[in-house]
């Protein structure tokens, strides 16, 4: 009894220390870390490139990615693993198994979320739908309207995760399908404007859901030098606000490090893309601290 009382008192004292520090301490520490891992355009590259490959010899491989992801999750338990689309098409695995193996392996790696790329329609929207039972992760796309297709209700516009009390809203964006994918493949999928959609999504995720982090999982492409006005991740970053990170795909852009872009209200947005074929894993760590921000110009970015 005496011992129990002592423990209670000492716990209370610790808690009071926390309170006296303006009550801003968390239970164990005054900092939180959220890690975002991401791939894009893996294109069915399950095996590593062979030693004879003319360009990517000995690079890539899902089994190696699994080891890497496991070790990162160990040191950073609040990790989300995301894919920005074009999971399908690129090796005979897809021709033989239609995407079954890709989805099963991503499930084994504990992917949290993916968006849909144009090549994910390569066996038709019915081919994509047929593989959904093999995916333990979910899909988001805010600008594809699947209402009149088999994918209806199987793709959400966004998903909110809570990790260590930090609320993370992630929405998906897909590329214009007309002229890129055979209409017989995507059928009645309706493409809506990515920037308008993103503005709706940030309003919902930031203003209504009060997310601490807003991430866009995009397959619209990084930037089109020949068509600078075509909608792209860089243009999206500039035209919107309240997005912290855009994870891109489609253009197979191998960024050595994330790009820092200014949004419509002059705040920083990170835009990242890790090329293709699972040659790299993107990693973005968000560090949160207790208390009011000291700096007026937002978080410092180290890339």
């Amino acid at each position, binding site marked *: 009894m005496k011992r129990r009382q002592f423990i209670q*008192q000492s716990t209370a004292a610790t808690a009071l220390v926390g309170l006296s520090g303006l009550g801003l301490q968390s239970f164990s520490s005054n900092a939180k870390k959220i890690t975002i891992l991401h791939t894009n355009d893996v294109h069915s590259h399950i095996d590593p490139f062979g030693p004879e490959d003319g360009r990517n010899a000995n*690079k890539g491989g899902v089994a190696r990615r699994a*080891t890497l992801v496991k070790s990162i999750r160990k040191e950073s338990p609040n990790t989300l693993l995301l894919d920005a689309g074009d999971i399908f098409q690129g090796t005979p695995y*897809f021709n033989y198994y239609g995407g079954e193996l890709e989805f099963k392996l991503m499930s084994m790696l504990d992917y949290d979320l993916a968006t849909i790329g144009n090549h994910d329609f390569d066996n038709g929207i019915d081919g994509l739908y047929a593989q959904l039972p093999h995916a333990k992760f979910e899909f988001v796309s805010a600008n594809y309207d699947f209402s009149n297709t088999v994918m209806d209700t199987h793709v959400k516009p966004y998903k909110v995760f809570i990790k260590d009390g930090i609320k993370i809203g992630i929405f998906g964006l897909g590329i214009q399908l007309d002229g890129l994918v055979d209409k017989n493949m995507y059928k009645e999928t309706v493409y809506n404007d990515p920037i308008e959609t993103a503005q709706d999504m940030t309003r919902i995720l930031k203003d209504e859901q009060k997310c601490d982090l807003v991430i866009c999982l995009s397959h619209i492409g990084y930037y089109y030098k020949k068509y600078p006005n075509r909608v792209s991740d860089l243009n999206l970053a500039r035209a919107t606000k309240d997005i912290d990170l855009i994870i891109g795909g489609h253009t197979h852009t191998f960024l050595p490090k994330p790009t820092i872009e200014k949004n419509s209200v002059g705040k920083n947005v990170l835009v990242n893309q890790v090329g293709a074929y699972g040659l*790299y894993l*993107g990693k973005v760590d968000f560090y949160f601290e207790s208390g009011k921000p000291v700096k007026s110009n937002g978080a410092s970015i180290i890339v």
Partner: protein
Amino acid sequence: MTIKHLLKLSFILLIFSCNQNFHLNRIEGKRIDINDSIASDQAIEDFIKPYRENVNKNLDSVISYAVNTYTKNDGELNTAIGNLMADAVYSESNPIFNKRTGKNIDFVLLNHGGIRSIISKGNITARTAYEVMPFDNSVVVVALKGEQVLKMMTYLAEAKRAHPVSNQLQLTLDTSDKVSSATVDGKQIDKTKIYYIASNDYLYNGGDRMTFFHPNDSLYVLDYKIRNVLIDYFKKADTLNPKRDNRFIQLNN
């Protein structure tokens, strides 16, 4: 107020502070190489193994040899790998088309984005064809009026990409990116003549914004996958040694 009450109160306050008072302070971003310095996860390896063995059984016998490594970026308007693909579609499809219709293909047009991999120097297997052409697209032959073919030439001039064409076509752009000359088998394109253009079903249906395939006079579906065209072509060619040439060029000055 007992210690218990105080505990509860501080607990509630702390929960509240957890949700409300954290702010984003620092972001660190980087990319991590995935290469042979990372050990493979054994469970994943074991899971892939039966799938891999089944696929490999069919794909790894050597059917040809490449003298060099060829990429779709090794030329401005035509590339060795693109020329190889377009010429392969011509030589493998024309006998079939001719047998069925008595007519001949005039030339082939594919798309630059449809070259999905490099061809590496060394042994060529059926796997190479899967890598270069993973898509299940098939050969179609479109009967097009000369005026539509001229629209195709304008498209190629504006796109300024190395969309593969077979060697029956010769297209030259002037310095201001306009068509300077366009000939098929050495003859100027005749607006009123019907040309038989081989392409693939993706492009025929408007892929890569190739709208010039419509309207057309008729469509011939050969039921011949481009990938199988490549496999058949590789099997016949002992050695692959494609070259960049003058089929699609631009004049300087």
